[in-house]
């Protein structure tokens, strides 16, 4: 075989490694949301805890996080302590997604309820409007009700520092 040709496999591999290294810092599961820059969708649901009617107008007038969760979701339990801590800095609105009332209430009674409001969405209708693929998902919404960020999966200090904080600084 040609003296130069034998180096070809190594060169191809080197190029692939470059891509793989880049690929490690990308998340293949991250879906761009069509709702970025859009106002929060209109909805009419109830509050899980009080049973009162909730609409878009009741949502906070300052930047807040909307956290999509359910009692059947394991990762939601994992991120719950972090959200509890975060709720001291900014309001966290819960969206209880495709859940039952008793299961959701038991879950909150057991793990604590850091949520400013708790939108109860047992059929997942608001979830559908938000383009939710599964729980947990977290949206960052500004004081005018415009969605700025969508995070799929667990929220922790790494995600906060890398994703939430930079966007939060621009909208505050």
């Amino acid at each position, binding site marked *: 075989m040609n003296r130069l040709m034998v180096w070809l496999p*190594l060169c191809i591999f080197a190029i692939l490694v470059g891509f793989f290294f880049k690929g490690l810092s990308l998340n293949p599961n991250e879906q761009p949301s069509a709702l970025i820059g859009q106002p929060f969708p209109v909805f009419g649901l109830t509050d899980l805890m009080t049973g009162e009617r909730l609409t878009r107008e009741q949502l906070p007038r300052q930047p807040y996080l909307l956290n999509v969760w359910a009692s059947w979701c394991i990762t939601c339990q994992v991120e719950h302590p972090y959200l509890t801590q975060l709720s001291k800095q900014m309001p966290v609105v819960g969206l209880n997604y495709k859940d039952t009332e008793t299961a959701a209430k038991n879950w909150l009674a057991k793990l604590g309820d850091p949520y400013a409001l708790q939108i109860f969405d047992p059929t997942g209708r608001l979830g559908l409007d938000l383009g939710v693929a599964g729980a947990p998902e977290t949206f960052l919404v500004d004081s005018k009700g415009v969605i700025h960020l969508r995070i799929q999966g667990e929220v922790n200090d790494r995600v906060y520092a890398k994703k939430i904080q930079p966007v939060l600084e621009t909208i505050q």
Partner: protein
Amino acid sequence: MIPEIGHFALVLAFAVSICLAVFPLYGYLTSQDGFCATAKPLALMQGLALAVAFGVLMYGFLAHDFSVKYVADNSNLDLPWHFRMSAVWGAHEGSLLLWALILAFWGVAVALFSRGIPDHMSALVLSVMGMISVGFLAFMLFTSNPFVRILPFAPGNGADLNPLLQDPGLIFHPPMLYMGYVGLSVAFAFAMASLISGQLDATWARWSRPWTTVAWAFLTLGIALGSWWAYYELGWGGWWFWDPVENASLIPWLVATALMHSLAVTEKRGLFRSWTLLLAIAAFSLSLLGTFLVRSGVLTSVHAFANDPERGVFILGFLVIVIGGSLTLYALRAGKVSEPGEFGWISRESFLLFNNLVLTVMAVSVLLGTLYPLLVDAVGGGKVSVGPPFFNAVFVPLTAILISGMAFGPLAKWRQSDDPKLYRPLIITLIVSVLVGLGWPSLLAGSYSISTAIGVTMALWLAIATVVDFKKKVGLYGGLTTTLARVEKGMIGMWFAHFGLAVMILGVVMVENHTEHRDLRMGVGDAQRLGNYNVRMTDLAVINGPNYVADQATFEIYEDDQLFKTVTPQKRRYDASGMVMTEASIDSGLMRDLYIAMGEPLGDGDWAVRLSVKPFVDWIWAGAFLMGLGGFISIMDRRYRQKLEVKKDEASGEEAPA
């Protein structure tokens, strides 16, 4: 205390693997036989240490030791004992341990069955395998230790094994697959050893052939088991999804298939030497790449269970060392390989080369299709996905080309084989195949489809051509029993494997073109006609399993108004994880499978139900089984045993004076 024994054994194995990587190589480079001789005992010791570590982890699962984090994450008090055993390799850390154990097992096998090979050679082979082991054990100890404990407050119960994996398919699929993946490391190590020693003639091909074949056979069975498991467990009724992880196993399989055939040419004729070396490196490198793709989370997949970038960086570094190192050595040495001998344009060599190229093109296409989303994302092109249309468009025509090569190849002779008389039987077989193939769809498929006709024709042509080759050999040797006794076992293995591929293709063609499928809303009392069958839902009940609650529907299947079978598919909700799983009911048959799965509840006691009749679907796995069987038959050959016995005598003769 007991988990610490396992942990200690793992650390010990790591230390031993470092010795195994260093001492024999040092001995070879400085010509000190004493250092070379450490290879075999070290390989055995490493195997023993890893067996202890593995045994301890399994004991942790059986004894419900939830103080071990890995056990707590992947087991549960209600989990049946056989799933607790297979749960050992049900997640990242444990499956790595299985990987390392199997690598050590192959090392032990090489140490025990390599008496016919010069000591310095087996020492180099084991040393290369030791280097791979160092990487894997370091990865485990530093990033993914299965013996990490939750102390002092161990949880009272575990989080349960992923319900998808609570299935007999999981007990066998990963070990088989790993036997194949890791088995390719032996051929890789032989290639590396011959590159290191500069002994680049055909001998390494003879030594590594049986190892490659047996690894290939395991890989074949492992992939087939995975496909079968996906078919009955995932609840979609598909048998292959072009999922990145499936592709990650298919790519090394294609390259290993090419390697097996290329090794035959290198051994028999001394040709394709540097090409065969490259294939041996590529086959194992692609297995490692598959591991990287699964473990690092760079691609989306149902199998990705460890999306941790730090682990990804570690594996990538390891890949760079192993693959980059071996390809550099290849580039430095393979340029000097001479290729003695020539072969005619039409000869067995040329057919094998042709099929090698087709298989390589297939492997590269699958690799590109799998990596394309990653490549596009890395250059900022956004999220794309490559689906079955791409893979089918590439695979179908390439398979057709491959089959014509497989029909001609076995009939061709080495060196020069352009006598048309040799290939005359193929013309008759082709005519028969075309006639049957054209008639097949109307006779057996229910509806006419030209792609079925072509596909069946190709499958039949390959099957009949294989039988013709077999009959020709029977004629040459005079009788069936003498043929089977005297012909090379590799030849019998080839007949099985080629025939198996024909069987498999027939299954694929029928399933892809003639599956009858309905998605329905059904409640108790509803009935639906499907082909010759009438399916009626007669009952809905809630069933309590050991660690799940299930909605179970009862269906009566009538064939020509006769009650033929009652089946009970389930929708299970697992207690610990809350995950919902579909248990499909499948009535398997030679000519068709009847597949019933429950979808979602639709209210008012109605359910979405999937009903399918899948013609010839079991032929896919039967064909794969025949292929794997062919691999195992090949290595029974007397040549491999004989050489062993002769050399054993020599060895004992040498040892006696000492």
